[in-house]
Every structure is written in C-alpha cells, then in structure tokens.
C-alpha cells in the first residue's frame, strides 16, 4: 500500500471542488476530486495563516484560514491532532505557514453545496521564499492538470490509458477521467488565468498583474479617480488595479497596530471616488490575494 502523496493545489481550484470520491470498502481513503482532475487525499500548501478561531464546545476545536494568491483554504483541527491544534493557537498571525493535511468534504443535508476543508497533519512556520517556491511548484503542477484535461477533452472517449500514453502519470490520468464524468464542463479559461496571476505574484511581488481577469467590474470603469494617487501617473492603467492600490494605501494609512475599521476605509475611499460596493469588492480581492486579512470582524489589516 503506497502512501497517499500530497497534491499541490491553489485555494481557488480546491474550493471549486464539489465531488468526494470514496472507494468501496472499509479503511479505504476518500478523496476530494477537483474540477481539473486532482484526486486529492492529502495536500501540501504554503500560505499566510490569517486567523485562528477556537470553536465553542467541550473539546478543543479550531478553525483557521490560510490564504494564497488565489483564495483562502479553511482548516479544521481538533482533539485528535493536539500538537497541530496547539501550534495553530500559539502562532501569531499573520504568519507564513507550510502545511501537510488531509482533504475533507462536507455536504449539509439541506443544501446542494459541498464544502471542502483541510485537516492539518503537520504545520511548519516558514519564510516568504518557501511560499514563493510553493507558488511556482503549484503553478507547474496545476498547468500539468490543465494540459491533461485539455488532451482528455479532445479524445472521443477519454481514457486513463490514452492519457498515460501521452506521458501523464497514473494518478492524474484517473483523476482527469473521473472529473470529466463528475463535472459538467470544466472551465478551461479560468484556471490558466489563475496560474498566470499567481506566478506574476512571485515575479512582481504582491499587487495586481497588468492584465487582470475580466471580472464584472464595468461599474468600476465609471469610478473616476480624481485624486492623484501614488501610482496613477501612468496613463493606461486598469481601473480595478487603481482601485486596489487606493484601498491598500488607505488601509496602510489608517491601520496602526490594531487594524483599520471597515467604515473608515469606506469613508476614506469615497473621497477618492470609490463607492461602497466597489470598496467591498476590492477588499475581497485583496483578501483572496493574501494582502490583507480580517483579525476581528469589521477590522482590516495588511499582511
């Protein structure tokens, strides 16, 4: 019996997963199947630990979040992992964390959604360069999944064998075939953009890339940036990128040690011509990128 290896996956792809695969029989592992065909029982990830919260109840149980350039992973750790649970409670957030963990999925009875999370097995405090190396590696392995999926989509009858003949490994080939059965149509535009954004994060540092994805931001275009901001000197900048910079700047000016309250940010940004909805959207994006986090509900701090 081989050890389940640890997949590298970005939060966006992982959180898009809505399928659990459980092999028949007792003591068989279960897997979270991602839309790109990652059949993941275990993952290894590096990101920013943004918050750790003790859940009410008799047994010690914590919920925590780890942010990467594409989104946020949710962790649950309890009494069966006392070492990791204690570690999580003692680490001062924000912190760069490397994590090995088991994938979990949960489907509430009254909903049609599946929630995926991670039960950590090991965590290590690391430096920023370990995170950058992980982003690069995760980009490469995600790209491989995209390529395998593209090949499979061109096959009349996608099969593991055919994918393996093309040089894809067995685990990925079987995952891709399973994903094609379980998911209606994989979004083949979305994930290449995701890894492009992620890799630019490594090269250019935090901040939006030059051609961000076409999100629903037409309304932002109308938001005039009347006020001169540090980065508005270049003429043809994307308006959303501008908005991100303004918001980030506002937070930095107001956060102090405690963080800046949501209301203050909204007010300050209004003077730069950004309406409340835009600010909220920008804050969400910045959180997904791991540039800011919410230490207390309603308070924002940069990482």
């Amino acid at each position: 019996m081989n050890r389940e290896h640890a997949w590298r996956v970005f939060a966006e792809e992982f959180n898009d997963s809505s399928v659990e695969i459980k092999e028949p029989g007792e003591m068989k592992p279960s897997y979270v199947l991602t839309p790109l065909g990652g059949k993941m029982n275990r993952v290894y990830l590096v990101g920013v630990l943004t918050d750790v919260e003790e859940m009410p109840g008799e047994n010690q149980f914590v919920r925590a979040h780890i942010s990467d350039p594409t989104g946020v992973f949710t962790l649950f750790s309890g009494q069966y992992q006392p070492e990791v649970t204690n570690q999580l409670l003692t680490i001062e957030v924000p912190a760069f964390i490397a994590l090995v963990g088991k994938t979990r999925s949960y489907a509430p009875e009254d909903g049609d959604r599946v929630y995926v999370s991670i039960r950590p097995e090991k965590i290590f405090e690391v430096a920023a360069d370990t995170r950058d190396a992980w982003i690069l590696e995760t980009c490469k392995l995600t790209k491989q999944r995209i390529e395998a999926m593209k090949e499979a989509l061109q096959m009349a009858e996608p099969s593991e064998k055919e994918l393996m003949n093309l040089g894809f490994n067995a685990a990925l080939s079987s995952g891709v075939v399973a994903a094609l059965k379980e998911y209606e149509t994989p979004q083949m535009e979305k994930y290449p953009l995701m890894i492009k954004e992620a890799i630019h994060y490594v090269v250019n540092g935090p901040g939006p890339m030059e051609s961000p994805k076409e999100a629903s931001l037409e309304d932002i275009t109308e938001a005039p940036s009347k006020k001169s901001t540090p980065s508005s000197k270049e003429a043809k900048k994307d308006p959303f990128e501008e908005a991100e910079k303004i918001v980030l700047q506002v937070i930095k000016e107001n956060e102090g040690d405690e963080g800046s309250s949501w209301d203050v940010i909204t007010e300050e940004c209004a003077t730069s011509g950004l309406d409340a909805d835009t600010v909220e959207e920008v804050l969400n994006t910045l959180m997904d990128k791991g540039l800011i986090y919410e230490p207390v509900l309603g308070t924002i701090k940069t990482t």
Partner: protein
Amino acid sequence: MVTDDIKTHAEEIIALLGEQVSGNISAEDIEGEITKFLEYGVPLDQAKQTILKKYSGSFSTSYPAATSRTLLRDLEPNMRSVKILVQVLSINPKEIMIRGDPRQIFYGILGDESGTIPFTAWHEIPVEKDDIIEVSNAYTKEWQGNIQLNFGDRTGIEKKTKDDLPKEAFEPQLVQVKDLHNGIGRIDLTAKILEITEKEVTVDDTQKTVYSGVLGDETGKAPFTAWHDFDLKKNETIHLIGGYVKSWKGISQVSFDEEATVTKEKKKKLTVETTPTSLPQIAALVEHPGRYDVQITGTVIEIQQGSGFILRCPECNRVLFQGNCRTHGTVEGVPDVRVKCIVDDGTGAVSALLDQKILETLFHKTLEDWKNMKPDEVYHEMQQTLCTKHLQIQGNALADRYGIIFIVKHAEILTQDVSEEAAQFIETMEEEL
C-alpha cells in the same frame, strides 16, 4: 425459513455443481451449511454463492481447465487456469508457517521461449531443476507488481522432453543492462564488474560463498550475484551467457551459477554509464517501484518516527528498543544516527532513509554532537533543517509493503532561484496556454 425451502436451495446447488460432485456431497450437508449461514444473518444469495464457490473450487467445475498452451509472456494477473510448457530453471524448498503449523512449499523460476516467471508450489511436486514439464490448471496472482504463478491442489504436472520445447527456449537473449527485467529469461550480457564483495551464506544447511556486486555497461548499472567462484575482479569486463534476472523488492538483479559461461574480455573496452537515472517526477516510481541508482527531487514534508540518535545491536545491527535487542536481549548498544523522512514532489512520495554519513555532511555535525543532545532537540533540529526544503536524493528505490523505501546514497538540499524560474515559467506559459 421453512425447511422445505432450504432443501430446494440445496438441491439447486447440487444440480449446479454437476454430477461429479453430487456423489461426494449430500444434500443434507449443503442444507446444514445454508442453515448455518442464515443463522449468522448472511443473505441467502450470498450464502448460496459462497457454498457453490467452496465446492466448485475443489472440484474445478466452474472454471473449465484451459486446453491450449499459454506463453509465459502472455500471462496476466488473476488467471484461474493456465496451461504452460516450460523448463524448470530453479527450484528450492522453503519452510513456512500456516496457521501455526510448519509446511514445506517450493519456489523457483520457470522459463519458455518467451521468458521466465517465478512460481510457488504449495505442495511437494515431483520436479527437479532442468526438467521440461507441462503444467495444467496453474493460476496467477500479482505480488508487488510482478506476476506470480501458483501450483495448487488441482494443478497437474506431466514430464516432457527437450524436443517438446522450441530450441529458442534454451538460447540466451542478447541484452544490455537497461533491458534487464523480471521474466526476461536466460541472458547473454557483456558488462564490466564495478564492485564486488564476497559473502558467506547458508543454503540448505551448507555454507556457500557468493560473490555479489554491481555491474554495468553503456546503458546503466545493476546489482549481481554469482553463486559460483568465477574469479571475478573489479574493473574486468565479462561476457556472461546463461545468467538470469531475479527481482528483489522490484530491483532487477543478475544472478548466475556454475551452469553459466563467463568469459573474460581482456581486450574489450567498455564505457560504463555511471550517472544515476534522473526521474523528473516521483510518479515514475509509484508506477514502477524498485529502481537501482536513480535520482529524484521533492519536498521533505515529514520527519518520521525512529529518526535521530539511536543505538544498534552489536550482533545484528538492529535498532535497540529500550536498550534491548529483539534477538540478543540486553546488549551494549552501538551509537548511530539516522533520519527517515517523507520526500514528496506533488506526484508521488517516498520514505527516504538517510544514514550517519549523509547526515554528517548535511548538518556539518558529528555523531558525538548528536549524542550530547536531547532527543527532542535532535528531532527539532532535523525538522528545522529538512522540512519544507527541496531535497535531491540519489540511491536505490525499493518496493516495500508499506510503499517506496528510498535508500539514500547521496543527498543535497537545493537552493532555488525562484524568480528566475518563475520568469521562465511565464515564458513557456505564454506559448502554451
């Protein structure tokens, strides 16, 4: 359930089993068995199937015996009944314990014109080395990725002569080191002896000297064992005719005895490929575990239990547990240090074993330094230095029951220029995606 119903089901089973069986087994026996299963809550269908399988298995009714010969090359795992015509290349007895009772079984290698296969006979068979035999009703299983042939209760053996097998069956195949794999048959190989050591072993209660080492040619390296003194010397090039390939934990090894011909090639100059095979992804090992002299890179994600400063038994080298050896009791332990860690590259994982020599180089420390540290400190240091780091390891990968064990011969913590590599990645991505 009404007794009458059970009777009907028992008769049905008897009918299905056919005439051959019905004379030996009474309907009452079957009724009893069905009743018992039902008492234990086994569904009727399952009970019937189980009983049917039990009797048909020992009387070979449900799986008709194969009538035509299969070549060894064409055997697949889990074949129920195969007929083969082979030469016995080797056969050895082995004592095993079955439910607490000792039992003698036989194992060895069979060969035909298409290749060779390892076999196990669960009973004594009237067969000697070199015999040509026709085997019917043998069955196959898969064991550590290799097909294994089994002789059971219903297996029949008939002696044949050399003329019954085509003469290619006795001709060694001309191969290079890279072609060596389990089941290849007798080989004709020219290679250079790179390492050789003598070892005393006990075979069938007699002492024997074996010569084992590493040989190689321009396509790679492989371990070998010679069961006869051919006066082999390091750096000699030999021409070996009639050896065969054995697999140990998935690694192909060349094995030869006095029946092989070994000629020393004094004039022949052979360049040997000595760089290890570099595997781009650990997945390659998952699909084909057991590789000699390979190199992989991955992230260390866990330091496993049993790592750190240890004491070994001076007699058998086993790690002591609370100062005691499993076989030799309380002994004066020999200090040593080792690390067992998981190296994982996102496509596969191995359990890597790093020994004292490698650790001293990686940590710039000596055994004495570790001896004076608390176990917790040692563990913490190993975790600090290795975990989340990219480790390039070179050595032998073994297919083990618990996964892939990687015996590390050389290890290096890699430093990465991430922004340079990221820039390159962006370029390839612009082109491809």
